């Protein structure tokens, strides 16, 4: 089911949370709303769910305007950042909740509910926790239960608010790969909010970069990274270096967009090695360029010739290779 967002604005007192947002999310797509905190991404997600009412504009699901529909009639699954599991119910009762709340005529029998709940719990690989209470689960387990609970009512759209935000780094990584696979299997139109560009790059089909209540850019992960539409997108989507060229001119480039050498080469600038950090497949070298206080970070493969026997305080010669000529700014 597709989502069409038209001219949506929302204000909280003096704070303009969203300013004339237009966005189309296609059926079956996994879209990330990416931006710093306070950019309006969570507000937009809550407006899609019906938890907030926009001051202006409309939301349509598959062409049908749902702006006037109550939360419970929108049939969206929603996963909260802090899970919002019902603390006094077992895992089983949490997942069964949506089915049990259906009007009598549509409500499945308890046997059908039990079958459905166990099916969902198996899907999230936590069937063995059915009788536990939320407080007895780890963060990653709670997150998966919250997902199973949201999917129980067979929503047409799945919305996730910072789904991995409260988890530690390793669990987060596992869970987001798992979510991407799950999305491939069930192929539900999904929107998730994140402030972590790596997460958005790894999971989403398309990324919507937001800042201060407006959309800065919409595109596939490669697109927003390679062809950022604004300085904000460029800086938000990855680390960047600034190299002054004199006359108030400077050039921006990513840490990996660099040529390093132990010997002086044409166009290469001399720099002092301040720090060497092996990060697995790549090594990060921090450089201090002559005539500039701002440090430069260069990332090269760990087997790079320039790294052999390199120590702090030695000299390296580097040349930026920005892929984006338009990022040369005055």
């Amino acid at each position: 089911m597709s989502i069409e967002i038209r001219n949506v604005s929302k204000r909280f007192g003096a704070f303009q949370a969203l300013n004339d947002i237009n966005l189309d999310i296609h059926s079956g797509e996994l879209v990330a709303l990416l931006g710093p905190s306070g950019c309006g991404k969570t507000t937009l997600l809550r407006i899609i769910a019906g938890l907030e009412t926009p001051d202006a504009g409309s939301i349509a699901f598959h062409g049908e305007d749902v702006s006037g529909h109550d939360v419970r009639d929108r049939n969206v699954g929603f996963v909260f950042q802090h899970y919002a599991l019902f603390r006094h119910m077992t895992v089983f009762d949490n997942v069964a909740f949506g089915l049990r709340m259906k009007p009598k005529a549509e409500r499945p029998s308890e046997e059908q509910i039990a079958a459905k709940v166990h099916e969902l719990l198996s899907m999230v690989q936590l069937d063995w926790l059915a009788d536990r209470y939320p407080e007895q689960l780890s963060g990653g387990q709670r997150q998966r239960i919250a997902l199973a609970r949201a999917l129980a009512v067979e929503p047409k759209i799945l919305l996730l608010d910072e789904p991995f935000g409260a988890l530690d780094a390793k669990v987060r990584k596992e869970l987001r790969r798992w979510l991407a696979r799950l999305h491939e299997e069930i192929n539900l139109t999904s929107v998730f909010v994140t402030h972590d560009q790596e997460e958005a790059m790894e999971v989403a089909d398309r990324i919507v970069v937001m800042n201060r209540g407006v959309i800065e850019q919409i595109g596939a992960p490669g697109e927003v990274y390679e062809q950022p539409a604004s300085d904000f997108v460029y800086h938000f989507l990855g680390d960047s270096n600034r190299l002054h060229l004199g006359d108030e001119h400077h050039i921006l480039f990513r840490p990996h967009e660099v040529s390093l050498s132990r010997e002086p080469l044409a166009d290469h600038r001399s720099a002092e090695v301040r720090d060497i950090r092996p990060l697995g497949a790549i090594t990060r070298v921090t450089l201090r360029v002559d005539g500039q206080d701002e440090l430069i970070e260069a990332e090269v493969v760990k087997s790079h010739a320039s790294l052999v026997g390199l120590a702090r305080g030695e000299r390296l010669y580097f040349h930026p290779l920005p892929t984006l000529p338009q990022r040369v700014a005055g």
Partner: protein
Amino acid sequence: MSTVTLAAISAARRGHALGRTLLIAAAWLAFALLLLLPLYIVLSEALKQGLGTFFTALIEPDALSALKLTLIAVAISVPLNVVFGLAAAWCVSKYEFRGKSLLVTLIDLPFSVSPVIAGLIYVLLFGAQGFFGPWLQDRDIQIIFAVPGIVLATVFVTVPFVARELIPLMQEQGSQEEEAARLLGASGWQMFWHVTLPNIKWGLIYGVVLCTARAMGEFGAVSVVSGHIRGVTNTLPLHVEILYNEYNHVAAFSVASLLLALALCILLLKQWSESRLTRLKSNAAEE
């Protein structure tokens, strides 16, 4: 509580066991002096002339009618308090609106106003010379010096109990579970019954216990509006006072021990329901 226990453990480990023992002894001593001793005096005075006199004082018609009136006041004011407390706590914790802090302050008003003044307000409103007095007299409705006045005064002084317990609890819990319930298709009533109520159960029970205790024991406000008509508008505390002023000490302390017994019952009820509900929960977890 866990920090207190931890602190106690580490203090003991550091060899401060003596200090701990002294503190606990002091707590027990204070408890004995301030609570057990008066309890003992009430009971010993009541039983001074044997069980016969004790029970005669209790089954005397005036005492029974006072007990009945006290229970009526409790039975009306506690449910009203629950409804009001829930509504107020819901408003304050789930919505943002103008005058919210004013509302929270007003809920506390009965705590800060002397109960005697509360009683006087009702006399000035509903008494024969009061604001609504003539209107009520024309329709032959009596509020002051009658049961409705006593109920009104009790409701007024107990208003904050449930709301005060629930507001911080519900503010701390936030609205996310309610939102989750709505998203899963629950109606407003289903959401309240299946999600909100179980979450605030303990605060609610505690508020009800406090409210019941206060409603039974209220003296000042009720005293002003009651008129002290024996067998008609006397509650238990008022009856105790009358007996005491008549130098009928044995009867006064007998009725007082009845009040005391009611209070202990309420405490036990709270303890019992609490342990039972926690046991239910842990049983379910082990199955």
